[in-house]
């Protein structure tokens, strides 16, 4: 078990080093950073001095090492546009994105799993047909369209929910949260549904197909032949066996929820890192882009690591083989 975790951990570090290299290459070769930072009237001497202070004259491997080691310590350099440390800017923006992603993931799981189980158990129910219609909408409509539709219905027509922003936020030890105020929660509803709808339908369809497969298996027939209650058969024996693929997909999707919150954040003007990244692209603010790239890569690697460990917890067969 420990050896398994260490092995995966080392693999994760290698992946991060490679991503760091890509981010570094982008950082160094997408135009001359000095040109981005200074005006036309800056003298060549001043440019050289800036080059020296930024460490741009050191040999490339040395620069890479500086970049990686400072990134590992949480220093991603200074934003060209805002002249602030990128790490601070990320820190300000991250809580908004993480809260949004977390709430939509919880929404996707809490709605998707029961819907999947229900549609697998009651194949001919009217509700099943309704759920499947919803899932078709969720899987085929693009995110921004769903967001705009929700805004139109709930903000413009019904005027019940805000159409943009985070509402009031409360600061707790440097973490600004919108989960503690009514307006913050209200502001969270529409973006969370928009972001989570696709994941929800994905999870629902996955649970449904896995569950139907498992319900046909011999051990379910044997469990029924032993007279176990339908609840024990469906939720104990069947659901647990469907969880392995669900964990994988949910884990990977959590990464993409955070990474691709960009669109939702834009539609709802949500002050998260996605919106910040989009602005950075417009301004060619390379340090922010590089930091964003590194952070998203780190998230995926980290989530994959957690998913791998969760497998081992759920499935005893892997536990024995790899230990």
């Amino acid at each position: 078990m420990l050896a398994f975790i260490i092995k995966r951990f080392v693999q994760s570090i290698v992946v991060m080093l490679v991503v760091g290299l890509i981010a570094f290459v982008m950082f160094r070769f997408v135009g001359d950073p000095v040109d981005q930072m200074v005006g036309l009237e800056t003298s060549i001497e001043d440019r050289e001095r800036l080059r020296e202070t930024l460490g741009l004259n050191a040999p490339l491997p040395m620069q890479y090492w500086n970049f990686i080691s400072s990134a590992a310590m949480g220093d991603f350099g200074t934003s060209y546009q805002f002249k602030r440390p990128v790490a601070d800017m990320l820190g300000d923006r991250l809580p908004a994105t993480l809260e949004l992603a977390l709430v939509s993931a919880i929404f996707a799981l809490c709605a998707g799993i029961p819907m999947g189980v229900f549609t697998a158990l009651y194949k001919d129910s009217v509700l099943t047909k309704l759920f499947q219609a919803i899932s078709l909408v969720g899987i085929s409509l693009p995110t921004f369209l769903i967001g705009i539709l929700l805004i139109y219905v709930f903000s413009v027509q019904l005027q019940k929910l805000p159409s943009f922003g985070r509402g009031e936020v409360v600061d707790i030890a440097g973490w600004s949260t919108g989960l503690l105020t009514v307006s913050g929660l209200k502001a969270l509803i529409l973006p969370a549904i928009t972001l989570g709808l696709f994941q929800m339908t994905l999870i629902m369809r996955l649970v449904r197909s896995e569950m139907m497969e498992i319900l046909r298996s011999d051990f379910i027939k044997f469990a029924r032949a032993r007279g176990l209650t339908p609840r024990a058969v469906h939720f104990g024996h069947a659901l647990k066996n469907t969880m392995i693929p669900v964990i994988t997909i949910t884990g990977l999707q959590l990464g993409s929820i955070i990474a691709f919150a960009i669109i939702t954040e834009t539609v709802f003007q949500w002050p998260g890192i996605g919106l910040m990244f989009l602005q950075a692209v417009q301004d060619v603010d390379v340090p922010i882009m590089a930091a964003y790239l590194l952070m998203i890569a780190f998230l995926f690697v980290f989530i994959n690591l957690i998913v791998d460990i969760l497998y081992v917890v759920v499935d005893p067969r892997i536990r024995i083989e790899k230990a």
Partner: protein
Amino acid sequence: MSDTLLGVKDLVVEFSTRRGILTAVDKVSFDLERGEVLGLVGESGAGKSITGSAIVGLIDPPGRIAAGTVHLAGQRIDNLPSEKMRRIRGDKIGMVFQDPLTSLNPLYTVAKQLVQTILTHKDISKKQARDRAIELLDKVGIPAADLRIDDYPHQFSGGMRQRVVIALALCADPELIIADEPTTALDVSVQSQIVGVLKKMCSEHGASVILITHDMGVIAEAADRVAVLYSGRMAEIGPVRDVIKHPQHPYTKGLMGSIPTITQEGDRLTQIPGSMPRLTDRPPGCAFAPRCEMAMDVCRQNHPEEKDVGTARVACHLMRKEGAVA
């Protein structure tokens, strides 16, 4: 009342498919005494397993019991609501399935599966249930049962898993055990051990057994009586010794002739020409008529009634005169 435990009368199981209704089991009747072992034999698709599933009420849609009755210890059970039937399954009737590798839930320990089943049917504490589980595993011949009970199914060999499956079927001391091809997926060397365990457990608990198999060797070893099914219909039923030594139905004769024995030296094994008709296009008369060497005109027109012939009941037009077959 005689000591009849199970009475199956004119059981018909149908499946509605796109190509019309398919009769998988057609008017099958038999009785089972307490403590008796009845073998149910036939080719694949003869309706053996469906008969077993129909008795415990585990026919999945689109299949259904279309006619006939099933009585267990005097109580009619084929039309019970599903919740009542669930309480009978596992409690009064235990089942053992063919493949021990897939019959157990891979994510739960053997202990958890046993204890869960025991607690479903018996009103005892968790500790008592665990003790009983260990005792059951010990009885079915799993060494160091108290240590191995916390293992997962994949940590057991195939034969050991089938013992676990038997222990699971016996959790609540059922009166009837339906063993559906319990040895088919196992090594030949393990097969007779498993049959032995099954027989021993049943005689100790006084349970009756329906042993579904296509292996006549297993039947000869374990069964008291044997019922031969062909294309969903009963061909012949009688005491094992008589059916094996003096089969009456031409199909049973063919079946017995195709089993190799040590004494019959150098002879070619007989084989029955052709194959079983598909259930969708069963001939109008006797289902076996197209393959039967002794088929007469009447065989192709009318389905034969079952008649008592000596100790057996046989469904064949040749049985017109009592016991007289050329």
